[in-house]
């Protein structure tokens, strides 16, 4: 939508970086980009290198694959070993290590695991394979959760009896609250996730400024969107105010997408959820409501799951809270690499460790 020449982009970027440097006036500041898609855009466009050294962008817990705990993967892997089950999943989940295996390894050994781009494809697969129990691995934040909810409504309408959902959906605002409540993350401002906000709107972030006096800006994903959002945060920090602002107004209306929110709450209810690195966070997950329990994999397909083990020395948990830079992890770039990931942050293309490795920050020191 934003058609600009390279020269125009360069000049606008130069303006923002210069102003950001002036506003920071030498103070050390930490801004957290919450969304994994932002992390990738920031690394790809070299924004970290453009910003002055004292303004640091820290990645938060916004990569859904990264925050999915081992227990969920172990459950999915156990299901994939059943001969009457077919797993449908987004591709990112395949290489994520569980306690002792991955879905990719299980697939290589003959488990029926299909990669889909949409919950609708999982529905089609279920309709075409009535003799199999088709489980959709429902991972993702508020952007993705309504698409799984919609699939459940469609399955109910079509009277599909072999479509199930293993839900690991998570909600962003409760995780931010947990981060702040822990008092350890020391964040001076939040770059808030644009596409999550396109669904939930602005109100759920009100507590950032009202309760914690921390500025937040909902940001788009073009490099200039991100620079402008950092600039907006810096203006607030400079003026010692804390407001919630919206840089991404072309996509994010104040009220979000009410139809999607209605469908989401029709099918799911909020529940406590375990996040890798953050532990159990109250009301930060989604479970299927009683009315649609016929589609809940856990309630309908009995399964025995191996005892969950965490990879020793993996520091994903600290990385996800912005407490540790990937390069400070002993495994980074050595035992843990994209082709041989030990922790989930190295698996997903949106993972902080994977972005550090791929785009060079720290790559040459290892």
């Amino acid at each position, binding site marked *: *939508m*934003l*058609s*600009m020449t390279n020269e*125009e*982009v360069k*000049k*606008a970027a*130069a*303006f*923002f970086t*210069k102003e950001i440097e002036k506003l920071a006036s030498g103070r050390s500041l930490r801004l957290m980009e919450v*969304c*994994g*898609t932002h992390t990738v855009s920031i690394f790809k466009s070299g924004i970290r290198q453009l910003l002055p050294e004292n303004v640091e962008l820290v990645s938060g817990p*916004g*990569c*859904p*694959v990264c925050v999915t705990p081992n227990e969920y993967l172990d459950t999915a892997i156990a299901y994939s070993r059943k001969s009457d089950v077919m797993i449908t999943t*987004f591709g*990112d989940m395949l290489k994520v290590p569980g306690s002792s295996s991955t879905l990719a390894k299980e697939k290589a050994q003959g488990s029926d695991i299909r990669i889909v*781009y*949409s*919950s*609708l*494809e999982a529905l089609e697969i279920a309709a075409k394979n009535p003799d199999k129990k088709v489980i959709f691995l429902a*991972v*993702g*934040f508020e*952007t*993705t959760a*309504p*698409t799984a909810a*919609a699939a459940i*409504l*469609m399955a109910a309408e079509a009277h599909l009896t072999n479509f199930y959902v293993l839900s690991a959906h998570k909600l962003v605002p409760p995780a931010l609250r947990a981060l702040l409540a822990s008092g350890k993350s020391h964040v001076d401002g939040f770059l808030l*996730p*644009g*596409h*999550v906000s*396109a*669904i939930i709107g602005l109100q759920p972030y009100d507590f950032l400024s009202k309760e914690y006096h921390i500025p937040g800006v909902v940001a*788009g994903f073009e490099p*200039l*969107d991100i620079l*402008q959002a950092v600039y907006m945060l810096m203006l607030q920090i400079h003026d010692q105010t804390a407001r919630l602002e919206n840089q991404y*107004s*072309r*996509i*994010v*209306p104040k009220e979000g*997408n009410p*139809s*999607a929110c209605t*469908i989401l709450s029709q099918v799911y209810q909020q529940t406590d959820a375990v996040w890798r690195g953050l532990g159990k966070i109250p009301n930060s997950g989604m479970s299927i409501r009683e009315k649609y329990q016929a589609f809940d994999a856990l309630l309908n397909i009995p399964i025995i799951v191996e005892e969950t083990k965490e990879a020793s020395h993996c520091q994903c948990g600290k990385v996800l809270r912005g407490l540790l830079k990937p390069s400070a992890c002993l495994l980074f770039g050595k035992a843990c690499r994209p082709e041989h990931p030990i922790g989930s942050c190295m698996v*997903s293309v*949106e993972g902080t460790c994977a972005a550090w490795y791929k785009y060079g920050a720290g790559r040459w020191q290892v």
Partner: protein
Amino acid sequence: MCLAVPGKILARQDMLATIEVGGVTRNVSVMLLPEAQVGDFVLMHAGFAVQVIDEEEAKKTLALFKELEQYAEHDK
């Protein structure tokens, strides 16, 4: 995972819309965006249209970015 792409709705039948993205057409569900109409630019995520793109707001952002060019030059 929250990657989403913009496209234009070319046709719509019930809850299914044909959307053009960079010269390619594909079908997406408008179940989460029932108000979407033919001609709208929408944001798509995982097979669903999830938001209508506000063209006025997009123009404002673009105009602002282009305006900065002058300031960047004055600063030299």
